[in-house]
Every structure is written in C-alpha cells, then in structure tokens.
C-alpha cells in the first residue's frame, strides 16, 4: 500500500518577482495493492509532477510518502527505484538507443540491486529475457544483440514496459506512455499494458490524456485540477461514466477553483 499525505510541491521561478508556482497543493492519496489507477487532468494540473515526486525525481516541498508504512519521502530517486518501474512518454528516455536490447534489459534486470563486477550479459539471463519477450509478439526474441535504435517507437516502448516490470515493482508509473505513438501502435501498447498489469498483479498509476483510455482501463480514476485531487472514482462508478461526464466534471471543478481563488483574492 502506498500512502501520500499532504503532499505539496512548489517551483520557485528564476525571476524572484514572479510568484511561486504551486503545482501540487495538499494531495492525499492511498494506492491499494493491485490498484490500476488512471490519472487525468489538464495541462499543468500536476499529473507528471505527482509521478515525479512519487518516484523521487523531485523533492516535495512538504508532505510525506509511505511505501508499505516505510517513509520514503527523503529516499533518493535511485534508491527508490527498487520499488518503482517507470515508462516515460518519450521512448528515447526509457531506453538507451546505441546499446543492445540485451544490455538495456540487463540494466533493468538488476534494478534495485547492488551492481558488482560479474558479467552483465549471461546466457542464463538471455533465456529469461527471451521468455519475457515472447508474449510481447514483437519478434525480438533471439535478436537481443540488435541495437535499440534500430527498433520502431512501438517496439522501443514495449521494451521499456518490459524493463519496468522485469523485476516486479511495487508500483508501476506510466506517464502518457502511448502519447508519442501512432493510434494503431498506441492501442496495441495499451492492450499489452493491460495484459501485463493483470498477469503480474501490478499496482499501477497511469497518466493519460485519452479520456476513452481513462475510462476503459483500470479499476479507479483520479482527476487532478490545479494541483488538487478533485475526483476519485471507483470501478463501479467509472463503468457508468461517459466521456462527456468527465468533461462536465472538469468544467465544474475549474469553475469552483476560479470561484475559490476569487474569494482569496
């Protein structure tokens, strides 16, 4: 179980006359084991920042994050990586192009472990990689020596997905991981994501801009607006929602926000 308490994140502008940018404002969230949460919100609502604070890439201004009761708020990103698998929007961020598939997978295979002076590439590891690659239907089994840069965006993103779960993470963070792909490939990767999440019982937090995906996938939907959680929708409720309902909720939330900020001013 992952617990997020009173999480705030502010970015100071390099120009001191500009106001401090409060991207997350008192976010409270409990992610239960096995949850597949879709996270939506307009640009600047704090979705990516929330993921970056959870992963440790950003330090929160205040608040705490607990993984199974363990306070990880001050744990460095590379140490927290033990618990977290990540897939980014840009396939180039999640993989290294000019080394082989095998070497990329070898890096992921030792996530969260001490890296020592034994060979990084071993035949016995290759068997594991091939076994994991086969269900992806990419035709990349036994092509482990090829460079990642020779792959298509879809293949590359599939590899990143596999890398994120090769060592089962406590939490899988997906940041619009299909947004840079064409619609057909995007659909394929979403299908693959769902299969892998279900088969491995992964706890997942997926950012998406696609309302249809947000409704179709997962057992829970969370909506962010200007740094606050404005809706936390369960599976039953989600099943009844339409895309228009989601837009209505956004509009309502934004009106409320404007109203409350008017009051403060």
């Amino acid at each position, binding site marked *: 179980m992952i617990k997020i308490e009173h999480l705030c994140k502010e970015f100071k502008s390099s120009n001191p006359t500009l106001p401090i940018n409060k991207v997350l404002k008192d976010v409270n969230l409990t992610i239960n084991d096995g949850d597949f949460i879709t996270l939506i919100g307009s640009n600047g609502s704090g979705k990516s920042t929330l993921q970056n604070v959870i992963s440790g*890439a950003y330090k929160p201004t205040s608040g705490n994050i607990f993984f199974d009761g363990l306070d990880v708020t001050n744990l460095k*990103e*590379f140490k927290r*990586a033990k618990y977290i698998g*990540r897939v980014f929007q840009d396939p180039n961020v999640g993989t290294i192009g000019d080394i082989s598939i095998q070497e990329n997978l070898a*890096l992921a295979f030792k996530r969260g472990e001490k890296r020592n002076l034994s060979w990084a*590439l071993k035949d016995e590891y290759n068997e594991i990689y091939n076994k994991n690659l086969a269900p992806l239907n990419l035709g990349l089994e036994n092509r482990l020596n090829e460079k990642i840069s020779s792959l298509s965006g879809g293949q590359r993103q599939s590899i990143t997905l596999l890398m994120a779960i090769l060592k089962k993470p406590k939490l899988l963070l997906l940041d619009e991981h299909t947004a840079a792909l064409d619609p057909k490939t995007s659909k394929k990767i979403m299908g693959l994501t769902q299969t892998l999440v279900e088969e491995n019982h992964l706890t997942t937090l997926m950012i998406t801009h696609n309302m249809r995906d947000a409704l179709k996938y997962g057992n829970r939907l969370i909506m962010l607006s200007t740094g606050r959680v404005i809706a936390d929708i369960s599976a039953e409720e989600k099943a009844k929602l339409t895309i228009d309902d989601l837009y209505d909720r956004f509009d309502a939330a934004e009106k409320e926000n404007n109203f409350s900020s008017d009051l403060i001013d």
Partner: protein
Amino acid sequence: MNWGSILQFLGTDAPTQGLIWTIFALGVFISYRILNVADLSVESLFPFSAIMSLLFVNNGMNPILAILFAIIIGGIIGLVNGALHIYLKINPLLSGIIIMVALYSPNVILSKGNLVLDSSKLTIFTGLNTLINNYTFSKLLILGIIVILIIFLMYWFFGTELGLSLRASGKNENMARAQGINTNSRYLMGMAFSAMFIALSGALYGQMTKHIAADAGKGSIVIGLTIVFLGEVLLGHRSFKLSLFSVVLGGIIFWLIIDIIIQIPGFNTNYLNLLKGIFITIVVVIPEIKKLITNNKKPKTTTVEEK
C-alpha cells in the same frame, strides 16, 4: 611495404608516440564518449603526471612505483574535477578548465620550466634495456604490453554490471536513475578512471623523453579527440568492443600520418598544430558528410517504393 621498411618505421619515434597517445586517447574516450564530457583538464594533467613521475625517480623512487603514484594522484585530481560538477554544480566543461588552469602553477613551479631526468637514474624503459639491450624494442615491448593490458581491463570492466551501469549513466541519466543507478557516483568513478589513464600516459611520456616542459600538454586534447574520431571513422561504432580497438587503431594511424608529414624535407614543425587542427576538422566532418549523403538518398528510395 617490405619487412625492411616496417623495421625502419618501428625504429622511429612514431610507434612509441602512437602507443603513448593511444593510452591518452583511451582516457579521453572515457570522458568524451562514455561520460559525454569534453574534459580539458587533460591539457595540464598530462605534463603534471610526467613531472610527478620524473620527480619521484629523481628522488630515488623505483620508476614503476613512480608511475603508480602518478596514476593515484591523477585519479584524485579526476575525482576533484568530478566533484566540482557533482557537488558544486559547476558545468563539466568549466570544471575541466578550472583544473587545467589551476594545475599550471604546480607544473611551472615543480618543473622550473623544464624538468630533466638525472642521468644516473633508470626509467621503466632503460631498466628493461639493461636486461635485453635493445632500447627501441624495450620501449615497444613495455608500451605494447600496457596497451594490451588496458584494452583487456576496459573490455572486462565495461562488460560487468558495474561497468555497464557507468556507460548507462553517461548515455541517459534519467533512465539510469530510474533503473536504480547512482549516477553521481558513476560520474565520479568515470572521471577518476579517465584521469588515471591520462596520468599513466603522462608518466610514461616523461620517462620516455627523459625531460618535460611545463607546457608539454598544449593541444593534447586535440590529439586525444582526433584519435578517438579517426578510429570511429575507420571502424565505425557498431559495438563497444570495436570502439576500444578503434581507439588503438586511430592512435597508431594518427602518429603514422604525423610521422610522414614530419619527414617531408624542409617541413617547418611549427605548422604541426595548425595541421592537427585541420586534420581533426576533417575527421569530425567526414561522418556528417556521410550522414548528409545517406539522408539525401532516403527520400528518393521511398518515392520509388511508393510507386
């Protein structure tokens, strides 16, 4: 080329110079190609290490120990260079320049402008010469063995889990951290390794030439980079293994070319740095021209396919 002319070539300075600068270029390869940093500190670290090794020998130290100590000191300087970036957030290019400038002082003070080896002292090369009585062969043997050892060492290290994680840190920091790699410690490690290779080449250079000027490192970064680029032009960078060999090949070919140029009758060696500058430009531009040519070809082939 017949055996006679090969022997004649091996008897010149070119192969030994080539091997020393290959070691230097392997250090540059670590900073420039693995860590993505153009580290200018090598310009001062190279003569500094030569001065260290000669000073140690002049003060009675065993020449092999003198080289080892120079390597250790070089590694520490590399760590300081890396720490300037990691802990003080100084741009890596600037941190290299800071070390380069800061080392000018000890270089001038310790060498008093030009440091000469005591004629009574043995170097690693003359030491072996007393055993086999062939100075040219002694130099080639020692440098050849060191280069082969380094290639094996690098091939092994960068193939381990730790070495692979160092390469990953240099290629993609975000990805490396997401995979649980401490990118800061890898950067420090890489900078130290790079500096140790530079120090080794400098220490060997000092003992080979038996004297060293405070400004002997001027333009050395250009030589290092040219060797790295030249190797890549010759062999491409298909795999990491191959890129190690390409540096060695680049080092030897580069000094062969320099040797041929120097031997042109009436050549004024003051033009050598200018020529090196032109040469590196050509070597860097070749892959770009290749890219341009292949990119121009691409649209044509796709239109053919579409028809």
